[in-house]
């Protein structure tokens, strides 16, 4: 078990939890950048291991999109819509943490045991990845601001990538690039939408958008 690996995985997992704790959106954006950076480093490790150039391209792309572009978009976002951006949650902090703990426990339970056994030496990391996924989902459930939802989706994606890396399931570069392209488009669309939502609703909260009730 590699210490570096452990460190990076823990970073990703902790940022996921961090999303739940922090109340300032600028921190959220930075935390996502940190998380993505950890992912980039993980990918870079596997580039070092394989040495394939296409892998390097992927790493660069991920760095460009998930770290720089995302950070840029989110900080702009926070600056622009400061009064409208909310970071409140439905559950208070202790309750949130209890649920986070429960989800982590579930991720380590016998239900997911077969997944952890894919690469036995990485079992703990794999479980961590799954826990990260579940906690990211919880973020989307719990947080009222739409920024948190966007971050939730992205963090979910990061967790999956991490799991894939640890489980030895990384796909060929062309597919990675395709996925990155999708994420790029997704990021752009969500940021356009955010501004449209702000224009129409004057806030960036999910609770504002509840008129479709049937």
């Amino acid at each position, binding site marked *: 078990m590699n210490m570096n690996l452990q460190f990076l995985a823990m970073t990703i997992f902790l940022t996921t939890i961090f999303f739940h704790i922090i109340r300032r959106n600028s921190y959220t954006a930075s935390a996502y950048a940190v998380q993505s950076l950890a992912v980039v480093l993980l990918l870079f490790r596997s580039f070092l291991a394989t040495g394939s150039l296409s892998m390097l391209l992927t790493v660069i792309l991920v760095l460009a999109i998930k770290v720089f572009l995302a950070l840029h978009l989110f900080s702009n976002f926070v600056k622009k819509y400061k009064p409208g951006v909310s970071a409140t949650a*439905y559950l208070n902090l202790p309750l949130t943490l209890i649920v986070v703990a429960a989800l982590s426990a*579930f991720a380590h339970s016998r*239900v*997911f045991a077969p997944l952890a056994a894919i690469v036995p030496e990485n079992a703990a990391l794999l479980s961590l990845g799954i826990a990260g996924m*579940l906690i990211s*989902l*919880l973020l*989307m*459930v*719990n*947080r*009222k601001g739409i920024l948190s*939802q966007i971050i939730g989706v992205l963090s979910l994606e990061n967790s999956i990538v991490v799991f894939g890396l640890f489980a030895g399931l990384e796909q060929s570069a062309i597919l990675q690039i395709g996925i990155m392209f999708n994420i790029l488009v997704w990021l752009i669309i969500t940021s356009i939408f955010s501004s449209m939502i702000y224009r129409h609703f004057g806030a960036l909260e*999910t*609770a504002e*958008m*509840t*008129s*479709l*009730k*049937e």
Partner: protein
Amino acid sequence: MTEFFASSRGFVVLLLLFAIGAAGSLLFNKNDRQANYWSNLFACAGSLWGMFVAIGALVAPEPVAFTLGFSPFSLLRFSFLLDRLAAFFLFVISLIAFFCSIYAIDYVKHYYGKYGIGTLGFFYNIFIAGMLLVASAANGLFFLVAWEIMSVASFFLVIHDRDEQENIRAGLLYLIMTHLGTAFIIAAFLLLYRSTGSFDFSAIQSGGAAISPVVKNAVFVLSLIGFGTKAGIIPLHVWLPAAHPAAPSHISGLMSGVMIKTGIYMMIRVFLDLLAPFPLWWGVVLLIAGAVSALLGVLYALAEHDIKKLLAYHSIENIGIILLGLGSALTFLSLQLPTLALLGLVASLFHTLNHATFKSLLFLGAGAVINQTHTRNMEELGGLIRLMPQTALLFLTGSMAISALPPFNGFFSEWLTFQSLFQGIAATDSRTIWVFVIAAGSLAFTGGLALACFVKAFGAVFLARPRSNEAQHAREPSFFMLAGMWPLAALSLLFGIVSGYVANILQDVAGTLSVFQGFPSPFLLAETGRISAGGFSFVSPPVVFLLLLIALFAVFTAFNFLFFKKQKTTFGPTWDCGADLTPRMEITSTGFARSIILIFKGIMKPTMLKSVECRDGETRYLPKSREIRLGISNIYDTCLYKPAQDLALRFSLYARKMQSGLINMYILYILAALLGALYFSL
């Protein structure tokens, strides 16, 4: 010749006639006149052809079975079976459809320019064809297709007069009820499929022994509810008094005369033909259902002042009577009394035929009246016997027939029904005797009440003075309408006089059912024209007819031509106690039935609304007008359908809460579904 009609080719021609009628009438949608003649003439031709097909199948030595075309669905086979039972129902449907179509030629003219005649003709042809298919289908899926075609086509006919919101509501109720019924039927057929591995009737029949008793009972209950909804058994009848008045009258005649009988047909087919042998309680349940429907049906009819609703309730009553015959047949079969079972079955078949003739006649007559007066409310009619003498005579004939007065046909089928119930009392043991006693008692009271009801109906519509301006200007309907009604009236009498022979044919029809095979040939129901119920009783219809004819002729001749010819007859006003006699003083149809309703108030739960308007507001001694509204509370709605509806609505609102509009909630669902699925499935 008959072989040609009762063959696949003959049947294809039959269907083609209706198909051309339907398609053509749709093509002529722009021109009401062409659409009318096209659709009704083809319906006439088709019905006539249908009668030949039916007769051909009746005289054929063996059941005619064939399969048409192919379908992409392996379980769906367009297979037909024209055994005698099917042929009999084909005959009844075609017969009534024929006269209704003649009637329709003139009747639908009043829709010209108002609603499309093309669509009416289209659905009319489809409707008749659907009924014919229902009666001849020999595959469960194919039957369901035909059943739905029949239901949906009749739904569109019910809402034809679509400007009336009430009609739309009636159509909605009708389709909802009929669809619920169909759901039960589908469940029944699926259960049968589960047990026998086929939807083909023949396969179900031969695999019948393999069906476990539990499944059999379940199928019985499901199909009783399903077919009972179509037939209009109380409490599944709620659509019937709504839908029949809403439809154009020739449609009401067909729906009430024959469509509801398809429910009876399928009960006979499924219970007697496919599922026999069966436990005793099936028959008992049918008997009780019949007794309740008959008695309550006629009571509700009495309370009605809408002429078509009144007739609709009488359909429920008559379905009850038919069920009494069928129920006793089932009971007797369970008790190993095939001879008596045959009697009961013949009674129900005969009443099916008879009810079809006189009920369609009555609906057509009511249609003629409504066409002239533009109201269905009997309180606004009256005195039409002088303005529409032929219609009055025809309606009187129908009334006498439906009231089971000899020598009309209704009497003889009720006679047979009574006999089978009497036999039940005489020949069965203490387990079932009381059921038969109740059934016979219900039938006896039903007969008396039906008589009262038709005195009221005929009296309110045709006798005394017209009670409204419209009723004063009524005219005899035009040629084709009368031409459609006269033969039906003649048939009502004819089927009565020759009922011995008819019963004999019906005995052949019923006797070919598989349940009656293997027993020694039972007694003849009829010999030299008289019908008999074993050694217990018999009646000779021609003798009854002659007796009445001779007695009437003798009295009439003696009275009018032999004696007392010198006395003068003068005409004067009705005695009015010194006040001016106005139509408002006549008894109303509500008033006529009031005493009976009050006597049965325990069952009918009448509601009385009185309002008095006084000339002098303070003293209240001089009432200016009094108004009394007598209504019957609809206990089926309040106790059965409304709670069910409320329950569904409540669940619906619960389910709608799921769609809260909050995206966090939605993602929570995904998370929960994920964790739940993982947890429960692993």
